[in-house]
């Protein structure tokens, strides 16, 4: 069902300048519209590189990728309008307030006036940030920063959202709110591409996952299907460890 595919990745290779070893070695996968797709893998597996290529931050060395039918090499601007990105690190201006940060990033997506104000207010309401709107980011806790960081990538109702480990370093309450909201967005038809080290979280949230290691996709499918394929393991984490090994990674 090609019309249902929103992201199409073919033989994607990335070799960073000055490095002999490819960060990703010919990844091929399709992501369907309306999926919550998890990219799982140990450190240095190639998750962030894959997402960065899809977001237009890096060009691939070889291979191709299309988002909503548009080639990522030749349609940077058009693709940037339909994607939302939530980077791994908090990417906000520390001396601006939460509201000012979101206003600026909303403007950069082309939003303004009442529509933007409503979108920001909605984000604050969903994530319980109303009373922190006028607080400078530098004075906010890690959890608040993460939530504002998330809202900044969602203001323009993107068709596809890329989240790079959005729940790292936050408390359980914040994590639950974020994951619930991602489910809510997904129900409205947004495709979510998500990387995480938390297997339990991915197992609950994702409709499909791809386990990546050393630049290759080593397993892909619905978490339940993966568990069925490996009946000797009781959960995704054990499957993950079985596939990727227990060696410590850089």
């Amino acid at each position, binding site marked *: 069902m090609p019309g249902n595919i929103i992201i199409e990745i073919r033989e994607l290779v990335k070799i960073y300048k000055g490095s002999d070893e490819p960060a990703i070695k010919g990844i091929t996968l399709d992501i369907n519209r309306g999926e919550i797709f998890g990219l799982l893998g140990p450190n240095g597996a190639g998750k962030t590189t894959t997402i960065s290529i899809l977001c237009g931050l890096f060009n691939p060395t070889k291979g191709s990728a299309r988002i909503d039918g548009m080639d990522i090499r030749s349609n940077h601007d058009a693709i940037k309008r339909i*994607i939302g990105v939530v980077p791994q690190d908090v*990417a906000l*201006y*520390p001396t*601006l307030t939460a509201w000012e940060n979101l206003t*600026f*990033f909303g403007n950069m997506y082309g939003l303004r006036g009442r529509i933007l104000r409503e979108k920001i207010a909605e984000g604050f309401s969903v994530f319980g940030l109303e009373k922190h709107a006028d607080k400078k980011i530098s004075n906010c806790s890690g959890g608040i920063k993460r939530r504002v960081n998330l809202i900044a990538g969602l203001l323009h109702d993107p068709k596809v959202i890329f989240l790079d480990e959005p729940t790292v370093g936050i408390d359980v309450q914040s994590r639950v709110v974020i994951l619930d909201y991602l489910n809510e967005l997904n129900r409205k038809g947004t495709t979510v591409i998500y990387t995480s080290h938390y297997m339990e979280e991915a197992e609950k949230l994702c409709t499909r996952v791809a386990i990546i290691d050393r630049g290759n996709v080593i397993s892909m499918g619905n978490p339940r299907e993966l568990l069925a394929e490996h009946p000797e393991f009781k959960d995704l984490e054990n499957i993950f460890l079985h596939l990727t090994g227990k060696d410590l990674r850089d």
Partner: protein
Amino acid sequence: MFRFFSACRKESLILVRDLAGLIILFIMPMIMVVILALVQEQGWTSITKDPSIPVLLVDEDQDTLGAKIENGLRTSNIFKICKAIDGKKLTREIAKEKVGKGEYNIGVIIPKGSTGIIRHKVQVMVTQIVSGIMMPVDNPFLDIQSTDSINILVYFDPGIKGTFKYAFMATMKEYSMFIESSMIFSSFNTELKKMFPQYKPPKMDYKETVYFSEIFPAGKDELAIPSTTQHNVPAWALFAMFFIVIPMSSSMIKEREEGSMIRIYTMPVSYLTIFMSKVAVYAVVCVIQFILMMLAGRFLLPLAGIAPLTIGSNYLGILLMMIVSSMAALGFAIAVGTIARTHQQAAAFGSVSVVVLTALGGLWVPVYLMPQVMRDIATWSPLNWAHVGFIDLFLRQATIMDIFPQLLKLLVFFAITISIALFYRRVKSPLNN
């Protein structure tokens, strides 16, 4: 366009929130301008008002030359003559030792018999002339050539500035020429008296006949007098303006380090829009900074007894020159901020390059005092273009057409630096890594 204005608003908020940084941006350059103008202007004024540079004078001649040189140095109002130290009369050995040790800057030794040598030389010359008139043919006197010369020794402290040394030597040569001329005049009278006993020498001393009037044509009625204020205030204001490279490149690197620039790269907005917003906001900062320094030159410096800054009457030209100079400074800052990877790189390269451009641009030492090679290089410094433009506006009553070459050069510099930044961004973009 609203993305640009939104980015400008963001930049302004970040700037205003950094109150300490803002104070440094505005107050420090003002302090710098006032102090440097004071050091340069007041330093020389105090020297001329209160002679304080000691000169060791050993007058072995004890005749006219020694007396004239001593009198000349004394009346210059710059030098304080020392002929004895701790009650002990100076000798050439002591003078050499004291200057060599750096205890004194200058030592002058007028050798014994100096005046006699001049007198003899002049006498030979006058005799030749007079006898030549009386006996133009077969006159043995005409073939005599006097090879006598005097060697006045001047010891200089090795640490003394070259320009000061040259000025002192020029003054000394002026005195000796004046003395020689006076002696020629007096010898002529003596010889004429010998030949014509009825000759009565005129009762007048040898006087200079050539005088110099200092006029500074401004092109209009108003006469603007060049002063260190006129040189220093725009010079250091421009220096401070170009120092914007440090905060601005630092803000760009910070934006990259904080990750907000990575987020912007994933948004439908061009890099040009983002950094032009920085240019717009920081240009306002530069213009305010420059105006504050002009005000300091106009109103603060006179409080310290220094001539106030004259800015002429072409206010539109001044505004244009301020904006275009700011753009040149900001283009440079954008290029440094784009190319530098760390704060340390930006700070080290930015500050050193601005100091070099300042020196090359003739802001420390006027271009006309530089050797030809440096003069040629100076014409390539954007700080020189801006400084020349301001000096033209302040002192020469220049019109906008007069400063057009400077404006154009600064705009081209801005375009080149911005292009370098864009090119580097494209080549070194993560997209190509």
